[in-house]
């Protein structure tokens, strides 16, 4: 049961990230990796919010599965490396700084919002 919840969450989270990335590329162009940035921030906020939920099953489905697969560290790192290799060093540095700051800020907001609910 627990494994199935993680499988289900992961099977939804990863394609959501893929579709968000495609939408962001269509909207903002290929320069800055807005898609990965936005899903990482949104998933971090949602995981923060989930700290207000007690159910282990909800955590496995939406936390470990959905948020875990919606957000990504590997694509974030690879895109940062590609920006650097393509001569966009400023974008590479800003991608790291903005992702860490906004991701951490989003978690913090989510945790505080969960505390208020």
């Amino acid at each position: 049961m627990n494994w199935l919840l993680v499988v289900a969450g992961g099977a939804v989270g990863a394609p959501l990230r893929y579709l968000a990335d495609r939408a962001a590329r269509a909207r903002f162009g290929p320069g800055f990796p807005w898609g990965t940035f936005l899903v990482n921030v949104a998933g971090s906020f949602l995981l923060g919010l989930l700290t207000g939920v007690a159910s282990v099953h909800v955590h496995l489905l939406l936390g470990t599965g959905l948020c875990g697969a919606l957000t990504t560290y590997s694509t974030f790192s690879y895109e940062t490396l590609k920006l650097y290799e393509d001569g966009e060093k400023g974008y590479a540095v800003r991608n790291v700084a903005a992702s860490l700051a906004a991701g951490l800020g989003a978690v913090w907001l989510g945790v505080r919002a969960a505390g208020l609910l």
Partner: protein
Amino acid sequence: MRLRAEPPVVGAVAAGGALGATARYGAGLLWPTPHGAFPWTTFTVNVTGCALLGVLMVLLTERSTEWSTAVPHPLLRPFLGTGFCGGFTTFSTYGLETERLLSGGDPTRGLLYLGGTVVTALAAVLAGVTAARAVRARTGRGRVGRA
């Protein structure tokens, strides 16, 4: 650019993502992180996934046509890269674990985790890309030499 997503690609991403998330969940069960400790499991999962994606992206997207005409299956990248590596690694858990350490009275460990992960993950993706390119260059020369 049209936004119509091909169902096989979305399906490959979903299958890879489910597999990656399950592998990460399994790693957490095998090596649970005690409360307040350095989150070594997420750290290792993220760093490993970064190195793997680095290797994969070279093998799947940087084809040199002069020595090989073999084109990787179009669903390999969505399944292994976007799906598996993307679902295996996680940014949200990393963020929450950092927040827990920072607000849980251990800011030093929190900052070490925050900075240590990003530096090691970037080094891992660079190492993966570099190693795969080196192997490819050697294999490529070998094939040209034999031709």
